């Protein structure tokens, strides 16, 4: 078993375990912290796939900006274990069964697909580096890139308008 495989299994276990902790933690603050752990594990997967730009962006944007926003809102609302609303046991069980059935169906459908022989190139390849991605982003995808700046502006204006008091 090579070091790459060991890292893959380790990161997968960390990602799945912390994702499970996100949905089972009673306290919302712990949920946010476990979600940050999940994002770090996914960033580890990106590094393993040599998608270095996305790994860094994932840490800066998701674990850095978005999760701090979540944590800030949760602390602003003073949510804790006592005030956390809970569904009753049957609704929880029904949700878990529904999600489990979806997992079962997807795994059964994908188990014998033709794509099984394909390999993802780990630990090599230069398409995930900034040089290649930047060249493509500012030539082929320059119009979506500029439109996304308008999207950000409208999101910013929208957040300010919604959050304004009356």
């Amino acid at each position, binding site marked *: 078993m090579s070091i790459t495989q060991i890292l893959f299994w380790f990161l997968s276990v960390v990602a799945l375990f912390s994702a499970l902790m996100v949905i089972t933690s009673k306290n919302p603050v712990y949920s946010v912290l476990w979600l940050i752990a999940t994002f770090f594990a996914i960033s580890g997967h990106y590094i393993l796939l040599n998608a270095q730009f996305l790994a860094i962006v994932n840490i800066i944007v998701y674990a850095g900006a978005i999760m701090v926003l979540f944590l800030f809102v949760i602390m602003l609302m003073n949510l804790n274990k006592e005030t956390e609303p809970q*569904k009753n046991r049957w609704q929880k069980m029904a949700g878990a069964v529904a999600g489990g059935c979806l997992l079962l169906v997807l795994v059964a459908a994908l188990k014998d697909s033709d794509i099984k022989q394909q390999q993802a190139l780990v630990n090599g390849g230069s398409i995930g580096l900034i040089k290649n991605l930047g060249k493509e982003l500012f030539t082929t995808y320059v119009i979506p890139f500029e439109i996304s700046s308008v999207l950000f502006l409208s999101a910013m204006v929208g957040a300010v308008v919604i959050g304004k008091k009356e």
Partner: protein
Amino acid sequence: MPINYYIFLSVALFCIGIVGVLTRRNAIIIFMCIELMLNAVNLLLVAFSKMHYKTALLAGDAATTAGTDGQLFVFFIMVVAAAEVSVGLAIIVMMYRNIHSVDVNFLNRLKH
């Protein structure tokens, strides 16, 4: 790495996100589970992009850039997710200010 492993890992993460959306009542946790599902899709896109790159390499093209599109889609998904989070959290804050709760069961009629 066989692409199968990445598919099953992403499917498992996505289903955990769905179970979270279905079983929790706190609007912020539901929102976080949606982020989890987006990340599962992102991971699968990157894995597929590297799969196409390897296929192009094996076809003999040493300077290929096949699969760049997949990684740029991930970048744009992150952009949209950031915009979505800012507006969504503003809506949740406004809702908390009006009904003093983030319980989605109070919002079943979308008015108060």
